[in-house]
């Protein structure tokens, strides 16, 4: 059974580049290497040119290709300043010289009806670098796990070269496709052209839900414990209003990791981290275990093959490294005390052919990660240990709604949910979400006994009569 299929929530335009295209083959022809080698942009950029060498792909070399392309375009084939790329490089060189950025804060730009999706940016040297006087970015929502068809990317490249700088971030830190640098006038056209012809929305900045992001999961990973792509898409579509129209105290991010390996770093980067989990037993193929011991298979699928680490030693490399000491290997048989396994993935990562996660799978929900500003960096805290994750995911939506509703009510302006939890304490947060507490919520019980008892916890409450007390104790 195919777990997923093409089930978009809104109609999707077919993608045929020959139909989509803006530029002719001739216009798409890049300048030759000879031309490029002798090409100087209109500013001296010796420091940047130093970055053209070296094995790693050089963004300076790449931007020069784009700069020269723009020089050759006909006037009506570019809708913003022809020199935008050269001016960007020129300003960057000046920033190196000054040791200071030359961007001003953005101000109010955006598209009508949306509270996010555009980051405004203006140069503080507009007279010198008019091509980047405005240099706003547009966040275009990325598809789940970032597979693409070339027709889409080619269409996007044409549209963006015409209407903007032609420069992308693939991708921004939150996951979006970032269109880097255009003038205000082109924001609405970019938004609507993407929507009409590429069936793709913008959005995901501001005190909104940010564009959710997921790992590659079931598309190409044997460890995926739930369908990260499907859940990511489902929730992105379900929360479109939250994504586009600010209704939160601050930004809010969802990220989806299919297993505790955490390839999209949800535990460090999202207000709600959804991390795959299983609740039955690890599946072991004993013959394959013997294969690893005999050296037939490389540990970690060959992840360490660049160095001679000696013969595979199942004790040293697996059994003794298990953080909860729950594995044994005796008489050629590997056993796991599943009740004590903390699902760290180490044995599975090390012997992928022999050890697989359990089959009764779902996810854990953790809450509250954020970068240091203001009250220090936080990682997400375990909230829900296990939850089945199957379409239409109503249980997950319900859990999210409970958490977000409380945050909207209780969170202060510009307070991330993790900061709110720190302010009010985990017990209060859990109670508000209708969740009981468990020892798994903490690493250890508290060390101070400053328990904030509530009146209703104590027989008779807090109201007492001093006269009654005085009957027993002299003043």
């Amino acid at each position: 059974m195919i777990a997923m299929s093409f089930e978009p929530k809104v109609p999707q335009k077919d993608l045929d580049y020959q139909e989509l295209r803006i530029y002719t083959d001739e216009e798409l022809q890049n300048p030759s290497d000879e031309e490029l080698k002798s090409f100087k942009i209109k500013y001296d950029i010796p420091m940047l040119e130093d970055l053209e060498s070296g094995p790693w792909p050089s963004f300076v070399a790449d931007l020069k290709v784009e700069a020269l392309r723009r020089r050759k375009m006909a006037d009506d084939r570019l809708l913003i300043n022809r020199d935008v790329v050269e001016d960007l490089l020129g300003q960057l060189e000046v920033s190196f010289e000054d040791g200071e950025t030359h961007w001003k804060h953005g101000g109010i730009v955006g598209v009508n009806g949306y509270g996010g999706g555009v980051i405004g940016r203006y140069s503080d040297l507009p007279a010198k670098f008019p091509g980047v006087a405005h240099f706003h970015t547009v966040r275009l929502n990325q598809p789940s796990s970032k597979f693409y068809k070339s027709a889409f990317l080619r269409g996007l490249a044409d549209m963006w070269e015409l209407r903007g700088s032609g420069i992308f971030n693939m991708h921004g830190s939150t996951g979006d496709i970032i269109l880097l640098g255009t003038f205000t006038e082109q924001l609405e056209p970019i938004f609507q052209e993407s929507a009409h012809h590429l069936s793709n929305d913008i959005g995901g900045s501001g005190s909104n839900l940010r564009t959710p992001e997921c790992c590659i999961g079931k598309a190409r990973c044997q460890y995926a414990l739930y369908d990260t792509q499907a859940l990511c898409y489902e929730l992105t579509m379900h929360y479109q209003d939250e994504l586009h129209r600010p209704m939160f105290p601050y930004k809010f991010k969802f990220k989806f990791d299919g297993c505790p390996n955490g390839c999209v770093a949800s535990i460090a980067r999202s207000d709600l981290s959804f991390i795959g989990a299983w609740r039955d037993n690890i599946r072991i193929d004993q013959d394959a275990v013997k294969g690893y011991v005999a050296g037939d298979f490389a540990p970690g699928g060959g992840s360490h093959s660049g160095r001679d680490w000696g013969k595979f030693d199942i004790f040293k490399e697996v059994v003794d490294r298990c953080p909860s000491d729950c594995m044994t290997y005796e008489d050629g048989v590997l056993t796991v005390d599943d009740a004590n396994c903390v699902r760290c993935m180490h044995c599975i990562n090390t012997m992928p052919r022999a050890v697989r996660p359990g089959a009764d799978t779902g996810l854990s929900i953790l809450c509250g990660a954020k970068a240091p500003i203001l009250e220090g960096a936080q990682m997400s805290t375990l909230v829900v240990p296990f939850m089945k994750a199957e379409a239409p995911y109503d249980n997950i939506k319900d859990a999210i709604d409970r958490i977000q509703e409380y945050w909207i009510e209780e969170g202060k302006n510009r307070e991330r949910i993790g900061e709110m939890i720190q302010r009010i304490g985990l017990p209060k947060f859990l109670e508000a979400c209708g969740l009981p507490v468990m020892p798994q919520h903490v690493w250890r019980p508290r060390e101070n006994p400053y328990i904030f008892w509530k009146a209703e916890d104590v027989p008779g409450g807090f109201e007492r009569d001093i006269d009654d007390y005085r009957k027993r104790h002299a003043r």
Partner: protein
Amino acid sequence: MGLSSTRFGAFDPENPTKDRITDIGPRHFWDFFPPIIQRNYGKWLYHEVLEPGVLVHVSETGEKVYTVRAGGMRILSSAFMRDICDVADRHCDGYVRFTTRNNIEFLVDSYEKLEPLKKELESSKFFSGSLKFPIGGTGAGITNIVHTQGYIHCHTPATDASSMVKALMDDLFEYFQSMTLPAKLRVSMACCLNMCGAVHCSDVALLGYHRKPPIIDHEFLAKMCEIPTVIASCPVAAFSPATTPEGKKTVKLKVERCMFCGNCYTMCAALPLSDKEGDGIVVLAGGKLSNRISPPKFSKVIVPFLPNNFPRFPETCEVVKRIVEVYAANANKYERLGDWAERIGWEKFFEKCELPFTEHLIDDYRLQYDSYRTSTQFKYTDAAWAVSKAAGGIE
């Protein structure tokens, strides 16, 4: 109908709501999957790294998909986007994928298609000689560095991002193309404390940092910002209301409180922090975010300041390379950098990496006490002998 080349395209400024499409989300992912991925969705059994940068995933249907991972520049042009598409069209039926760490993955459905693909990727170069698609970034090595905007686009950076990453990846290139380390080593870069990339859980993190308090633009502050907002923005309450001699409302700053977080500037453009001498780089190390063996942990500050030496940041590159080499030579198999440092003790980490331990590295912000060593368990290093000497305990 295709994309428009007219000035406003599908948007009609006279009638902005006409045919307006909103709230459609990203494209659905399914038709972006190569057919072999669609056929084997959720059926993968195991994978192997055939060589650095080349993976095979084997499905229970018996099918195998081969992936070649190429290091990517996060910032790239339309011209380069088309180069990517050309490779995808020639070898992968037009499909391509990007990874969380900004690499580019090309997938083929048979072993025979692998060699021609690799060959093309290896031979594609920019006019200046840099590779366009270096193959690597798998297993126990160093994959691409995630980074933020820096001087390319942001108003608060304390350093530049794309240039530092290019310089570092050139220096660490051998680790990108090999799998010789004890475990994965993740490097991340953010150009200010906002950490758009959330670098605080990386094996090695590079962070732009301001070291001078904001300049107060007294003349304009009240015009540009709301004073209560400015005061509230500061996490250490360093601002208080004030009036200029001319009677203009402004704020004053207790500079000794300032931790250079830049939050005030984020709230108010009349409080710029950037400064050529002041700004530079903090190096952190020992974080991780997978749950493998040990739980995720934060990175720790190991070098309080390095200068912004554009464009190639030699001091920063040298420190990072040194740490990587010492780690590679000393850690056990599967041991992440932070786990190694904890096992040998941070005092030994500083000794082995020959990094000076300065007072800046001891936490004096909130909750600092947790990091103080309330035990007699420690190891002796030169740094310890120096303290004993200063205390008059030894000659």
